[in-house]
């Protein structure tokens, strides 16, 4: 048991470092104007994706958010192929057509990140419906933010999932902000999980920066869903360290608030526990960090050395059949 616990701690630490390292690099590349468009980084929220994805089975599905890099890596996506997508390269998950905000990998049960806040809630609920119709035991986990909880999609999805006891776990990453607007300015409910009451489903509030809290909560909710008892709404309290997008001046955040959360950093929390439990030395953890940084550097090299999509690709994949005519007129 002790060995397993140690392995889990070190695995989570390693994974969280991978997520952060990927995002710090993406942020740096964006600042250097190496990446086009916009990117939304996951820095600060790593414990949620890592805890949640590790609590799921291979047969399960996830739906990601526009802030979804971390969720994809935690579910097993290759940083190389993800970075290639961020660069708009042919070798990316979406052949360069989706970019940062829309990474999907059906082979890992990743039904895609989504550029429309809240849309993933209905897609994930539909995936749950598919499992129910086909009488399969997969669970679908939907990542979404505090912002999405004010969309109609959220309420319609939770209503139907609860009415039909669909095997879905709704995991709200409450990072406090929808772009610039703090959730308490636009929502009268202090805890989003309280909205579970409206649908008579379990609502659970957890510390989203504590990976084990996330892991345990998602395990429980997934088991509950798999047993046919229906959905759970989990609210993971967290904070995004960067702006909504890279380059966001963040004039809406106070210094005190940022400091408070920086002192409650997900990676620091697990690091302290690992050291306290004697599962690894400082040196070992530093080595992990170095190893992860190398992995991400390699991903950047892979992306840089990959070709851009051929211009002909622009008209491909609009339709599965009759694509040429469908695009022509």
């Amino acid at each position: 048991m002790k060995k397993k616990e140690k392995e889990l701690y070190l695995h989570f630490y390693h994974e969280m470092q991978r997520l952060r390292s990927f995002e710090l690099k993406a942020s740096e590349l964006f600042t250097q104007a190496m990446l086009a468009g916009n990117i939304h980084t996951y820095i600060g929220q790593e414990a949620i994706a890592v805890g949640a994805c590790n609590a799921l089975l291979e047969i399960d599905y996830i739906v990601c958010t526009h802030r979804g890099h971390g969720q994809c890596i935690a579910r097993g996506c290759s940083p190389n192929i993800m970075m290639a997508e961020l660069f708009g390269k042919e070798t990316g998950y979406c052949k360069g057509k989706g970019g940062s905000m829309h990474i999907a990998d059906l082979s890992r049960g990743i039904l895609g990140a989504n550029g429309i806040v809240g849309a993933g809630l209905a897609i994930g609920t539909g995936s749950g419906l598919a499992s129910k119709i086909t009488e399969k035991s997969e669970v679908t986990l939907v990542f979404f933010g505090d912002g999405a909880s004010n969309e109609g999609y959220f309420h319609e999805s939770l209503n139907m999932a609860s009415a039909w006891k669909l095997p879905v776990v709704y995991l709200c990453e409450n990072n406090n902000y929808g772009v610039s607007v703090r959730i308490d300015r636009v929502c009268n409910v202090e805890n989003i999980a309280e909205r579970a009451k409206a649908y008579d489903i379990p609502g659970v509030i957890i510390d989203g920066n504590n990976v084990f809290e996330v892991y345990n909560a998602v395990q429980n909710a997934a088991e509950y869903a798999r047993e046919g008892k229906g959905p759970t709404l989990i609210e993971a309290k967290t904070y995004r360290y960067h702006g909504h997008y890279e380059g966001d001046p963040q004039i809406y955040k106070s210094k005190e608030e940022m400091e408070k959360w920086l002192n409650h950093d997900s990676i620091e929390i697990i690091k302290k526990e690992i050291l306290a439990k004697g599962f690894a030395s400082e040196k070992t953890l530093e080595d992990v960090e170095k190893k992860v940084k190398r992995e991400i550097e390699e991903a950047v090299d892979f992306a840089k050395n990959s070709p851009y999509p051929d211009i002909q690709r622009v008209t491909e994949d609009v339709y599965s059949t009759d694509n040429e005519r469908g695009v022509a007129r």
Partner: protein
Amino acid sequence: MRSITYGQAIREAMYEEMTRNSSVFILGEDMGIMGSVFGLTKGFLEEFGENRVIDTPISENGFTGMAVGAAMRGLRPIVEIMYIDFTPIALDPIVNQAAKLRYMTGGQISIPLVIRAPGGAGRRNAGQHSQSLEALLTHFPGLKVIAPGTPYDAKGLLKSAIREDDPVICVEHKILYAKKGEVPEEEYLIPLGKADIKRSGKDVTIIAYSRQILFALEAAEELKKQGIDAEVIDLRTLVPLDWETIQQSIRKTHRVVLVQEAVKRNGYMGEIASQIIDELFDYLDAPVKRVAGLNVIPPFSPALEDHIYPNPQDIVNTVLDIAY
């Protein structure tokens, strides 16, 4: 050959495809116990069970989005949006999700989804239950749109649509549900993207779809009495468009009248007119004419409603205008 209604044809298409493929299921308001407000799925619940004939809450955005998710998982949902007027409530899952996810994921994802949307005026349902919104839905790359006008076409096209791996919007006309037409007993399919020459002629081409195809055929009979031999093309599918059939006809007749029930401004026929002018200008002996609905909101009063959309006489008059 036997004759059945357009509504029965749609019912048969769904019934046969559900029997053929257990991945096909129905999702929508009042589809189960009630058998849909137009009676198209009566008995389906008993036949296929509540996992495959699902009565939803009144949450068009939510359940259409769920259908997209279920389609991503390999199922083949048929969603009914009870009136096409309600599609604006569900536009995000239709236009930002279903239409785009194949492309945006580099071809990884298929959305084998059919959305049936009854539209059209004539039932005294007023402004929020009588519109023709197909032009809106043809705007988005990634969607296919069919708009059958006869029972035969409705059945063959809907069956094909259910087998498609792309999202297809099936625009039905409420007035047509009770109209009868010949439909064979044996199975058949009509491929998407193929227009049908409903009447051959040499003097003028009349292009229409959905209910207006019946009016165009009536107009053609009237024109015949006046010595004008009209060719009537039923587009049947709006996306992908059967340009071949259109251009061959216009090269022959040199005159074209485009007919739609929808309001004229930004209607689908405006797009067809533009393509004809772009590519067939030298073959035209007269201006391209549109016969279309007034740019108004469908009114309730029978005294008003029948004046907002084209009738056969309007088509006749327009043809006569260019029959110089």
